[in-house]
């Protein structure tokens, strides 16, 4: 099962390498990728698939959010707060 992540990244030394390296290092295959020029930044679309069932797409997203000069545009950081399942019995 694959998922597609859209990211806007700065045009800086190593920025693309940093992103791809992170995705692979955190245990995901890259099945497809496209890159487009947006002036000072670049738009990257990556189709990723976990290497095994233990790989969590949400965690990959949060790891990407930590990259300096990279912003997920498919699922903004703020939206992630609602992903946490807060369980408090009444």
């Amino acid at each position, binding site marked *: 099962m694959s998922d597609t992540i859209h990211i806007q990244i700065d045009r800086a030394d190593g920025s693309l390498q940093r992103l791809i*390296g992170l995705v692979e290092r955190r245990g995901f295959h890259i099945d497809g990728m496209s890159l487009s020029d947006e002036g000072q930044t670049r738009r990257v679309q990556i189709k990723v698939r976990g290497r095994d069932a233990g790989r969590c797409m949400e965690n990959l997203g949060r790891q990407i959010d930590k990259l300096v000069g990279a912003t997920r545009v498919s699922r903004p950081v703020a939206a992630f707060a609602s992903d946490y399942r807060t369980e408090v019995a009444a």
Partner: protein
Amino acid sequence: MTVATAFKDAPATAPQSGARLLVSTLERLGVEVVFGYPGGAIMPVYDALTGSSLKHILVRHEQGAAFAADAWARATGKVGVCMATSGPGATNLITGIANAMMDSVPMVCITGNVSTAVMGTDAFQEIDILGVTLPIVKHSWIVRNPADVPAVIEEAFHIARSGRPGPVLVDLPKDVQVGMTSDPFGFPIPNTVPELDRTAIANAEALIRQSERPLLYVGGGVKIAGATEALRALAERTGIPVVSTLNALGSVRTDAHGYLGMLGMHGTRAANEAVQESDLLIVLGARFDDRATGKLAEFAPLARVVHFDVDPAEVGKLRRTHVPVIGDLKAGIEALNPGPLAIQPWAGRCIENAATHAYRYDAPGEGVYAPALLNELSLQAGDSFIAACDVGQHQMWVAQHCAFTRPEAHLTSGGLGAMGYGLPAGMGAKLAQPDAHVVTVSGDGSFMMNIQELATLRRYGIALKIVLLDNSSLGLVRQWQELFFEQNYSEVDLSDNPDFVVVAQAFGIEAFRVDARDQVSDGIARLLAAPGPCLMHVLIDPKENVWPLVPPGKNNAEMMHGDSRFEGDM
């Protein structure tokens, strides 16, 4: 912010080189000490260093510079700085950078590189250090314009210390170091203190009130966030028992009521049993490292999880979290007030268990008993004690047996487990806290990995004390071979070690030997009283093991106790 404004408002200045701008920016940021080693591609920076207020410590290997900067940062809470030339200088920093990454230590690493025109041509001493270090830095830059130097350095410091800290790398090509500019600009430091999530705090408090067996699982983040006092106050007002990771030792005083010890592979029985029985783990700046959890699927099987962390990616990474509290740990802990709790039966049982299984130091025999020696070392040194550990059995003995009254007292390569950390780390810590009793505790394997830094101690008269526990072997590997590889001892014998007393003396360092138990107390007193650097070479039994031990891949309840001398009644 202020820095950027200062630059904008400054009158036009005479042209300056990138190297000079680097030095003046470091000075302006309040950097006191830089650990480094010169070479061809960073010579303009070293040229600019002369006459600077920065104190440069010339190490004898770049790895020593990185480890020393790391320990400086851990001991001061400020950003550590190291620098090296291109190629081999830069690659020699790598283990130190990885170490800082694994333990979230703020560090700025500055490397020279060949000129931009020849980058990518395999020029002499050219290495793509930005590419090489990508997985082990928080961020990195190649500066391509001298005017960018102040902004990049300011941003580098900001990123290194903000949020979850970590190492950053700034690569300065030689033409950028020598290039002149009269138009430097600063970096506007963003103010990004996130709002405290009151709802999450309230949810956490609700879970705590429902819990019958809550437990505080404290990680290195508490110290990093400056939340030590907040944590101690929380433990006090709630009475919830505390277990600590390796990197958090000292965050709660090791003699505090309710403190159960370190959890995990070499943790205490009381800590591991409490985790397995707990119905609510309150995780504070910890990351469920496998050395702490053992077999993850069987870790704290009855517990729900409240997780406080500044790094959202740590929440839910390995263990499902019921209530995440993302943000500044200090603010979060201070705000947490669940009110009176009816947990006395549980807390009392935990504390009783800790007392029952307290370590004992009355082992039979005449030989030096390392756990007892380390316990006495910490007690003799008192509140100003700082242990800078190497990696191996001695590291675990320090964690188990030393008394710590503050988190800065325990510097250890926790995540990376890098042998060779101890000596340069002790050096960095002693420079950071010159009045403290800083003691490097090393083993005969680890010590040889950065032994060259004895020359640095001598050169600067750094009064670091060294306890070298010598079992003539790679003890922890030997222990695992004994227990898990059918006593097939492979490449662990170091019985042809040099005479470490003579080696130290050859470097101009005072040194003496302790080889019997009745010499230990006087030896420690002599070591701590020595006015300059001093090494105490201690011969210990090569067959001594670290107990208790959770075998790798097992759950924390399956502790092995190979030697009853190490624990009380079981």
